[in-house]
């Protein structure tokens, strides 16, 4: 007999419920549920029914391209969460990251690969700084990070827009195209995926996934971060520098989101863009982190799933279904993950009736109370 539901199962159930929700909405509004599956197949491998059996790897490439940044923001949110912080600020960190990488790309002439690396590092650094602010305020003044992050998202957007517009050659909506030396674009990757925009960002993401897993599970630094996340008091009693850990973890989280910004601007667009409204990379990251159960591989898979949902949107719209269906599905999945306590309760009601010492659950709530503490308060 299992004691509790494993996080992976909860994720799978949530994803399933989210898709079912989407299908139900489709049917209620009078569309064929096949639209969803068609779009999914096409987004995944370019498979279409009217051109039967034809595959197009460009779709695969583009779907991966759309997943790359949200895998990174997912890692960002998850990294902070493992240290007890809610990083709802990835959105802003992505934007300042993109801005910084573009600044270096345009303003600092460097040779070849070094240029690209410098740009990527700049993006990560800018994100880290944006993450440092809530981390510092939390550890120094115990200020709830959620509100600070939300406010920094907007400030980050306006701030980056201002900077990008001020760069030489910028128009009101975008910068000049970055020099090739700074670009992450790859002719090779593009050619094997039928001219998609697949780029070296994929390497960055791979490294980030590995680093996430390695730091948290294999290093003593990760050990202390995890201890801080689970029980800050005990970690402090054990001599760990928990305040510093909170700051570091928010900086690393910020850096991961900043990398997402770099990948978007150096890889996908090859220029800086003035952004009018959030593009939801950060909020998708929250979904990805939770659905991925804060586990490196889980986050990668969840990121791919949400990336796929994103590329499906226009395809479904082409079939007449409002493209917002994908957003409803994504939000539904997050909502279901949030309701995991309810899911567990529901399943246990249907499932076994026998009760077993399960002090675990009671204490679990207690701990959670401490950890999730906060809300909008000073």
């Amino acid at each position, binding site marked *: 007999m299992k004691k509790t539901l494993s996080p992976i199962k909860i994720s799978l159930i949530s994803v399933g419920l989210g898709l079912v929700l989407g299908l139900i*909405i489709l049917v209620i*509004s009078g569309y064929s549920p096949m639209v969803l599956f068609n779009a999914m197949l096409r987004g995944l491998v370019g498979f279409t029914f009217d051109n039967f059996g034809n595959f197009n790897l460009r779709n695969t490439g583009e779907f991966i391209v759309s997943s790359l940044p949200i895998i990174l923001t997912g890692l960002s949110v998850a990294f902070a969460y493992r240290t007890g912080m*809610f990083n*709802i600020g990835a959105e802003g960190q992505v934007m300042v990251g993109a801005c910084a990488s573009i600044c270096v790309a345009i303003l600092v002439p460097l040779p070849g690969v070094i240029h690209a690396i410098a740009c990527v590092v700049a993006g990560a650094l800018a994100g880290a700084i944006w993450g440092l*602010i809530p981390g510092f*305020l939390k550890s120094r*003044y*115990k*200020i*709830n990070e*959620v*509100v*600070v992050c*939300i*406010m*920094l998202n*907007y*400030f980050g957007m*306006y*701030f980056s*827009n*201002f900077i990008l517009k001020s760069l030489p050659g910028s128009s009101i909506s975008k910068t000049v195209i970055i020099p090739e030396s700074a670009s992450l674009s790859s002719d090779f990757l593009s050619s094997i995926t039928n001219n998609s925009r697949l780029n070296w960002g994929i390497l960055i993401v791979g490294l980030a996934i590995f680093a996430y897993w390695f730091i948290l599970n294999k290093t003593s630094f990760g050990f202390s971060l995890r201890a801080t996340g689970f029980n800050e008091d005990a970690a402090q009693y054990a001599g760990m520098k928990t305040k510093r850990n909170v700051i570091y973890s928010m900086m690393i989280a910020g850096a991961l989101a900043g990398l997402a910004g770099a990948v978007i601007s150096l890889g996908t667009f090859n220029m800086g863009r003035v952004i*009018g*409204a959030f593009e*939801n990379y950060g*909020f998708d990251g*929250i*979904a990805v982190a*939770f659905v991925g159960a804060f586990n490196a591989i889980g986050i990668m898979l969840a990121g791919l799933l949400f990336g796929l949902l994103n590329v499906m949107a226009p395809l479904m719209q082409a079939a007449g279904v*409002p493209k*917002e*269906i*994908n*957003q*409803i599905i*994504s*939000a*539904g999945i*997050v*909502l279901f*993950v*949030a*309701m*995991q*306590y*309810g899911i567990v*309760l529901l399943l246990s009601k249907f499932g076994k009736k026998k009760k077993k010492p399960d002090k675990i659950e009671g204490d679990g*709530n207690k701990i*959670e*109370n401490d950890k*999730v*503490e*906060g*809300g*909008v*308060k*000073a």
Partner: protein
Amino acid sequence: MNLFLQMFPAALIMATPIVIAALGGLFSERSGVINIALEGIMLVGAFATATATILLSDTFGNFTPWIGVLVGAIVGCAYSAIHAFVSINLKADQTISGVALNMLSTGIAIYLCQLIFDGQRTPNFPTNIAKISVPILKDIPILGPMFFNNTYPTFFIAVALVLITYFLMYKTRFGLRLRSCGEFPQASASMGINVAKMRYIGVLTSGFLGGLAGGIMVLTTNIQFSASVIHGVGFIALGCLVFGKWHPLGCLFTGVFFGFSEIISSYSGNIPGLSGLPTEFFYSIPYVLTIIALILFAKRSVGPKAAGKIYDAGQR
């Protein structure tokens, strides 16, 4: 001075939804549930208001916008019930639940918009809330043109709501009980207060006010509904709540102040000293100020203590 008098009515138009939404946040957080879904609730309320106004105008004529905002408020209330259920009954993390609702709001609103109106935005409102001038009062020097001349009556609704909220929170039994649930729910429970019920009331009221704010905002600042009508005002309202120290009057003053910061960029060209500054500077004001306020208040605990904490009565 003249310019200031010109700016004032414009600032009040922006301030009205901010204040009302902040009051919504106040009810929710005072009861112990943080509500970062305000932005989403406003959006859903705005959509419902727009839809009702457009579909019902033939029947109700010029009165329709008022029915519209009421519909918006009710729909906002219903929408917030999800947040209440998930965070109170299912004991979910209130922040995640809020994030999910914000994500869902654009999805649902635009999806329905596409179904009903066949597009990402609604047609124009056939009827509008009319601006009014209050006789006699409008002739008072300075105050007249600031508040009572050619202005939307919705601002007076906001002020009335502030006063009602103040009265409810600090003078009545309901308010005392609601606040106790946000401070120390275990104490409330031991005094026989149904914490879950009070929190439900808090969140649903918050949804009602959020929906109302969204409805008023879409009707007074736009001629149609689209996904971008709220553009962050729900989050500004959250900041307003922090900056106003979770107090209704604080929300009112901060709301008007943030209303000013929303419109000041429009007038900056005419104000010496501000004319050179980039618009991004002005847009950033509410957000940056909120962070500064948080730092200033950090030492004093001004927010409800138990807000955001899951309350578990212990029994099953």
